[in-house]
């Protein structure tokens, strides 16, 4: 498949107008950041030329800054309790979900009883998983800022397609904590497909097979005239290269008959050895192995047997996703391999056998996700012409609500194209009932206890009536990041109450601010300066966006609307001088509100324009 034409002349603004936007692959094992460098988007190296940043953070005693990446790796052996790896596996999880797969976690963690949130105890204090992620994001954004010589205007962060709402929400929160403006959360496989791109004439179905350190994703996309449409996606958030290490470690213990009671440092050393063997098997066959006073050898055939169960699981997921996409193997035009673990010959062989064709590997499987995110960031920030390409993604997990008998009724099935909104009407089941409980869940299973609880909320103030007379309309909205919000409206009396529900695990702005405060030593002045800067950027962006919108579509405004907008705009411009971030923010919101009607009208015009050509064709067809 040809590479995307990402550098057509005229499509790109000049260097000076260019905004700084980057793509970040926040991986379980390794993280990367990519940005446009001249004509192409590339991953950025650190000062020593290394592109990958191991997703490892080592916390040091009070006062010393945490070590990240390669600097933290030693800590795995020497200071395992304060060195955190694979934190992505903990994001958005609660106590129950964690206990069954804790072997990778060398740090100690406790579950905060009040909100069931997970906290990791370190010498530098308790850390929530998202704080650890934020520390990784900070290092990457600093790398990018020094490369692009200036602060970032926005980032695209990738997440496994299979991430649920809680995991996405926490990724966003981590970015906020690191002071980043998230343009979009992008699904990793979609990102990989973007990196491989297509010529505008290219069509076809692509399977993206991504086996990373801790997660496994398979997606099928159809590519057509610059539109990437995800047809189906599936995977396993608890399957990755690490599991192959575990299997090998077990095998070593069995073969060598060594003592299997290991302390955390010894265990890490064994896992380290296992991983090295796994990597060696990708280059060499067979390999020699020695552990304690035992030595032996291992070839890929034997390795395939040891890990057969894991390999089978990946193949099963592929079949399932094919089925969801309603495609046969013959209809697949390309396979894209992503993730370091797809370097394993045992995986490549199986994938090739299943799809009966050679997978694409021309882009480094470690970098491909970050590169796609960088391309998308460049488009979203507006550096690239709008009509270059479009991504239509899906929600990976079904969304439902609890009904009688602890069952889940699906409201938005998995693989529905997002954004999506669905409404559902509920009614009271008891006479005089004034409160209704709504429990929102995510997952494919039928029982409430088998799905992930997203939000539980009460609709109050229902007028007392006979059972079944009151009506509550609930709207479930999933946005382009795959994030949910719920809106309930009480209809029976004509007067409607409306509530907005944010899922319970999302952090409130207060919590984020508190964390920000804690994480910055000289908080006060920094915070103020930051708040002011943020409010100025926000205000200027809005003013700029509105002015250019008015320049194009100003004639859509009635005199009254135009007056209101210009008043609100003038007030905001005046406030920009005051350095009062709160006031600037308030007036920005106000101007924003005043422009809602205008936004709707502009959208209509765009729609009419978009179909003008087709409408004429259709009419002439009709006339026949």
């Amino acid at each position: 498949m040809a590479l995307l034409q990402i550098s057509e002349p005229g499509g790109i603004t000049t260097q000076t107008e260019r905004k700084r936007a980057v793509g970040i692959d926040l991986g379980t094992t390794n993280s990367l950041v990519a940005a446009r460098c001249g004509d192409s988007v590339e991953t950025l190296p650190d000062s020593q030329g290394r592109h990958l940043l191991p997703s490892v953070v080592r916390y040091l005693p009070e006062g010393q800054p945490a070590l990240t990446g390669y600097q933290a790796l030693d800590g795995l052996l020497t200071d395992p309790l304060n060195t955190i790896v694979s934190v992505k596996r903990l994001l958005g999880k609660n106590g129950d979900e964690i206990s069954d797969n804790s072997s990778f976690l060398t740090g100690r963690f406790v579950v905060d009883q009040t909100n069931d949130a997970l906290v990791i105890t370190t010498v530098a204090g308790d850390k929530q998983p998202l704080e650890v992620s934020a520390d990784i994001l900070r290092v990457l954004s600093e790398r990018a800022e020094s490369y692009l010589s200036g602060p970032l205007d926005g980032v695209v962060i990738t997440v496994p397609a299979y991430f649920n709402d809680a995991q996405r929400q926490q990724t966003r929160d981590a970015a906020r904590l690191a002071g980043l403006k998230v343009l979009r959360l992008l699904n990793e496989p979609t990102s990989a497909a973007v990196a491989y791109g297509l010529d505008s004439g290219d069509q076809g179905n692509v399977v993206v097979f991504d086996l990373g350190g801790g997660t496994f994703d398979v997606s099928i996309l159809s590519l057509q005239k610059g539109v990437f449409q995800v047809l189906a996606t599936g995977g396993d958030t608890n399957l990755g290269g690490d599991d192959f290490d575990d299997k090998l470690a077990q095998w070593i213990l069995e073969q060598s008959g060594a003592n299997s009671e290991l302390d955390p440092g010894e265990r890490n050393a064994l896992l380290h050895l296992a991983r090295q063997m796994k990597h060696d098997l990708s280059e060499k066959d067979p390999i020699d192995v020695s552990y304690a006073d035992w030595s032996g050898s291992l070839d890929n055939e034997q390795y395939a047997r040891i890990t057969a169960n894991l390999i089978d699981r990946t193949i099963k997921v592929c079949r399932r996703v094919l089925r969801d996409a309603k495609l046969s193997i013959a209809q697949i035009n390309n396979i894209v391999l992503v993730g370091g673990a797809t370097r394993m010959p045992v995986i490549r062989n199986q994938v090739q056998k299943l799809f009966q064709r050679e997978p694409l590997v021309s882009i480094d499987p470690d970098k491909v996700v970050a590169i796609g995110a960088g391309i998308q960031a460049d488009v979203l920030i507006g550096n690239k012409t709008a009509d270059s390409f479009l991504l239509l993604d899906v929600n990976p997990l079904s969304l439902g609500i609890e009904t009688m008998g602890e069952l889940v009724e699906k409201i938005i099935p998995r693989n529905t194209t997002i954004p999506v909104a669905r409404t559902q009407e509920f009614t009271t089941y008891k006479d005089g009932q004034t409160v209704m409980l709504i429990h929102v869940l995510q997952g494919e299973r039928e029982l409430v206890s088998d799905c992930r609880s997203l939000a539980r909320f009460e609709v109050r103030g229902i007028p007392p009536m006979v059972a079944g007379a009151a009506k509550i309309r609930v709207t479930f909205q999933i946005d382009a990041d795959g994030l949910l919000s719920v809106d309930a409206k009480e209809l029976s009396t004509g007067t409607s109450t409306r509530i907005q529900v944010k899922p319970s695990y999302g952090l409130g702005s207060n919590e984020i601010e508190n964390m920000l405060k804690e994480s910055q030593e000289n908080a006060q002045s920094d915070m103020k300066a930051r708040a002011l800067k943020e409010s100025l950027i926000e205000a200027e962006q809005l003013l700029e966006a509105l002015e250019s919108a008015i320049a194009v579509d100003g004639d859509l405004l009635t005199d009254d609307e135009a007056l209101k907008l210009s008043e609100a705009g003038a007030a905001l411009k005046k406030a920009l001088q005051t350095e009062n971030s709160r006031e600037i923010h308030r007036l920005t919101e106000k101007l924003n509100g005043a422009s809602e009607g205008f936004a709707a009208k502009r959208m209509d015009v765009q729609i009419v324009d978009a179909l003008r050509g087709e409408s004429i064709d259709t009419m002439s067809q009709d006339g026949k």
Partner: protein
Amino acid sequence: MLLQNKNFFQIFSIPEAYDLDPVLLAENYRELQAQVHPDRFANASEAEKLQAVKSTSVLNDAYETLRSPQGRAAHLLQLRDVDVSKVSQSDLSPALLFEQIQLREELEDIPRDEKSLNKLDHMRKQIEEKVRDCQKLFVKNSNTGQLLRAKSNYYEMQYLFKLLSDMDAIEEDLLGY
């Protein structure tokens, strides 16, 4: 808002008919998406972002509805003021109910082991044939204004599709997905 147009065919500028051109529908859908998708507004004001999320949601819903053979039938009836969410006895003839019960029993009787995959396949073909017949009748009846009959065809279609999706689930079970 233009997308509040209750007629999904008009949203996509395609003729209001059960038999539609899926390629044209898909093209027009993508054309519209390219204008309203939130990715076009990632750097715009909150008001425009919200508008984009709402518009795209409507567009996706309209597209899903028209693409689905059942959804499209329901929508056509709805446009003719026939509410399919309310089933009454008279919508379902005893013959129809009897046939559905028989088909259900036939499905129940297929043993749940891998050897039955062929049997499932066979039954699927048979049902897909019935769906096609039913769709033809639906087109005829809705075009000639026999809306009650069309409504009944719709319910039959719905039964058959439900049966097909249950067969999918059984097959997935057998294949161990």
